[in-house]
């Protein structure tokens, strides 16, 4: 691990709330750390364990799943389904020996630009503290 190593984080965000929240942070120019990439889905319920596992397999240092607050889901209960999937995902991730701090679930609404930035900063710091993912040693450092 080099001195200027930065974590590589993948964020799954639902279209209606979390992705919109990230946009709100943008419109308000709320600066935050850049070491993450977003994948937009329509609902957090779409996030299956396979996606998260694949991300870690490919070398992600951290994965953040984000959706709407309970009661706000555009598809009514999609986010509740997401929680159920997430619990399963967390168990497998633990089984694989990845540290708890590498996987996180957050509810961020479309208006919460500041919260989005805050979560990104916190999570990035947390993952940086943990260092590169144990699976990322399989990646060839370019």
């Amino acid at each position, binding site marked *: 691990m080099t001195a200027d190593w930065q974590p590589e984080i993948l964020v799954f965000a639902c279209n209606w709330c979390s992705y919109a929240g990230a946009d709100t942070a*943008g*419109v308000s120019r709320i600066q935050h750390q850049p070491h993450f990439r977003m994948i*937009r889905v329509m609902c957090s319920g779409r996030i299956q364990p396979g996606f998260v596992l*694949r991300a870690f397999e490919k070398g992600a240092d951290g994965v953040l799943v984000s959706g709407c607050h309970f009661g706000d889901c555009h598809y009514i209960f*999609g986010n509740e389904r997401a929680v159920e999937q997430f619990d399963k995902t967390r168990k497998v991730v633990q089984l694989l020996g990845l540290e708890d701090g590498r996987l996180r679930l957050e509810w961020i609404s479309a208006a919460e630009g500041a919260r989005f930035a805050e979560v990104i900063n916190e999570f990035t710091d947390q993952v940086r503290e943990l260092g590169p993912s144990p699976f990322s040693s399989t*990646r060839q450092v370019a």
Partner: protein
Amino acid sequence: MDAGRHPLIETVTNAEVIGCEGEPGDFKVRVRKYPRFVRDDRCVACGLCVDACPQVGGNEFDVGLKARKAIYRPFPQSVPATYVIDPDACLNFLPHLSEKQKKQFDKIQRAKKKKRPHYPGNILVCGHCDSVCEVDAIDFDMKGEEFDVNAGAILVAVGFQEFDARKLGNYGYGRFPNVVTSLELERMLNASGVTEGHVVRPSDMKTPKRVAFIQCVGARGEGGRPYCSRFCCMNAVKDSMLIRQHDPEVEEISVLYTDLRAFGKGFDDFVQRSFDENSARYIRGRPAKIERVAKDDTLEVFVEDTLEHRQRRIPADLVVLSVAAAPNDGAAILAKMLGIKTDCYGFIARRDPAISAVETSRDGVYVCGSAVGPQVIPDCVAQASAVAARAQLYLTGHRVEEEEAPVEPMDLSGPPRIGVMVCHCGVNIGGLLDVKTLADHAATLPGVVAAREHMFACSSTGQDELIELVRENDLNRVVVAACTPRTHEPVFRESLARIGFNPYLLEMVNIRDQCSWVHSDHPGAAQDKARDLIRMGAARARHLEPLEAGSAPMTHAALVVGGGIAGIQAATDLAVQGFPVTLVEKEGHLGGRLAKPNLKHLYPNLRPAIDVLEEKLERLYKAGARVLLNTDVKNITGFVGNFEATLEGHVDEVLPVGAIILALGAELYDPRGQFGYGGLTNVMTSQELEQAFFEDDGGPTVDGHRPRSASFILCVGSRDPECFTGCSRYCCPTAIKQAMQLCRHGIDTTIFYRDIRTISTGAEEMYREARGMGVLFVRIPPGQKPEVVGNGRAEAVQCFDDLLGRRLEVPTDLVVLSVGMRPRKDETARFHDMLKASVGLDGFFLERHPELGPVETAVEGVFLAGTVQGPKDVVDSVAQASAAAAKASVFLAYDSVRQDPAVATVDENKCRGCGKCVEICQFQAPGLVEMAEGIHVAHINESLCKGCGTCGSWCPSGAIASQHFTDRQVHAMIDAFFPDKAVAS
């Protein structure tokens, strides 16, 4: 934003109506449009001009809490997105010059030009915005214009303004900087507002430790306005919880109230939550004054606390005045121009809210929302839908015809040929990122055959270049790296669709809102991120599939179940528009609760219910709806546009319909066992009292003679954790109406209450009148109930009077229990089974969303009207029924049901019929179909699928593909993030 984009809606802003003539069906409205000095056909909302402008002006949107430049966009999501120049702030305008002086100025300019030909004409004092604008959108010479609009109907939705709290000198608004209004607080609490969501004291911008809310400012008698402003109680409760969330350093929040009017669905539960979470302490009392007590502008609120029976001085660092809604300043002038009446307060008057929620005093002119008086949002939304339907009356014959100009679809087969356009967005992206390098890198990505940059991809030139790129390179996939897809994706999709390119083969990559705008401190990392995001976008693009919007035929007919006032209204509205509508009623007569002998008079002005009903029925029959009495709906199958209802009774038939409106009504609570009802002879319900009015105007007789006194007990069966925690909304004004009726006949009446919730139009004034007449009001402490005592018959009501502070025993000859509304259990269960429409925790049918879908259910094509959705009175039921009819008619106007193509599909070969998808879906889209003996396979109804993808992530066989967000597409993006392990696919 949807309204701004709609092809049939022309938005004219910065304009006002200056005249109107004509007739319903043919109005000529004169509009004056003031110049914005920025051309809306050119402005791309990049914001460069704002940075360049040196002049600072006021800020209307942030209510003066924040400054803005002379050129500005009113707020981030404004429609149109065009900026505007404030001529009062801009240095280039000389508003203080008179016409004569301006002419002289021009003369001098011309003379100078003559003397020295090189003297540039039209010198601008300042032209900074113009000099940085890259699309030449600034036009200081823009003139206003006047034009006529030829309209069949006019809809007035001018809203309200805040009561001017400066009128109440004792509260110090305008004198003390730390006294703010609720609207100013809203701007502070807004995450994208002045203080990024934090509450601060205006005097020193510090977080206040103690906040006090004062309710009813400018309402219920204060400031000369007797009405109730409806939304303020709930707003204060909500704000108290928000402040707690955002600013935990705030130690104390006090809400100083008179009655807590949590009248709507879920409101009481919300207030309870506030109590449970201790978000505020509620002090019952109306403050006398506010004083400044320290140099640092700390304040003290003087109030008599009627719960603790003492005078108090509440210290506060910030005081929020919950100001009432007042009519808009321009409303009176507009009303005059349109020839419609205003009411005694200055709001736009409705002809008769019980007959129609939205008619003004003039035919063809309708009104909705807060323009009629204080409203809560769900009511505004419902009225707005209702008003749109009414306008249709004058537009019949102009059916929407979808112009399907047939475009030859392009040949998009073969291996992916991707084109990438990277946008600069002026300096928004280009100022931080090296766009050229991004484009060059994109050109090297697998599948990419062409890459280009553009200054403003969303502009018309940008669109043209995109089309050129597609054609020149035979592209079959397009990636645009620019702003968020949530803004301009539809624009790009439309441009592509117009040349036959499937719009679902477009991928937008967000390198502005989620990159250049938020990572300006790390330009290197931002560049890497943008490059990675483009790579991920291209990877997804390789796997995008062309999708076609499907359709199912629409049955152009409606079914209304239930012949009460709501059902009658809905059926009338639909029939008048020309839709075949069948109104089905189980009983032998129409009218429901308005039919004799249920309701004698309507409040607040004692209109005989029978008159209202008769007028409604006349309109119904004139409209030509098909009415079936003594008929029941036995079963309903199908889905939106294609329902089949089995009717039994007066007719036996299977009726095909496209939309269904449920107007099943509600029951009244049976108070058996409480307050002596059923045991003591002179205890009756409010319903029974109303029925007695039909026999005799003076009410019932007790033991053969007229009672000398009567006691009303409110909230029986409501606000009670044992049966229904919510408010039944109609009972307070009804009890007052009935009490006044008895009072007029010499009977002493006393009303025992917890809060008086007279929020309906005219109800607060009726409350005041009742007190004037001598009706006594006894307030019961929270958590307690009065007791009815007597032997064989009720003799007195005992309780603790909260305002007097002692126990009372009020002798009474008659006890009336104001019973709440409850859902009809059996009917609800039956229709829930048939339609799968959700039922809320309170037992009433659940609307899709309180603000965005107050009359829809989650099942498309099924709507709610009236008390079936929750307790309400006649005026609210009528408004909601019109809204339901309006929504239904939107479907029925089209020839087919449009299906969004980004839906889930099932691969039958993989499906093992486990039924998990059916269990999960909220919208009834998947269903199990028996393909062969014992073999089931899931089929997804594309008309109902909303494309959330949840079933796709749960299917254990991997049989469900969530189109446009498939597993392969997501995997491709994940893989592309980490290129060293990119899997060729």
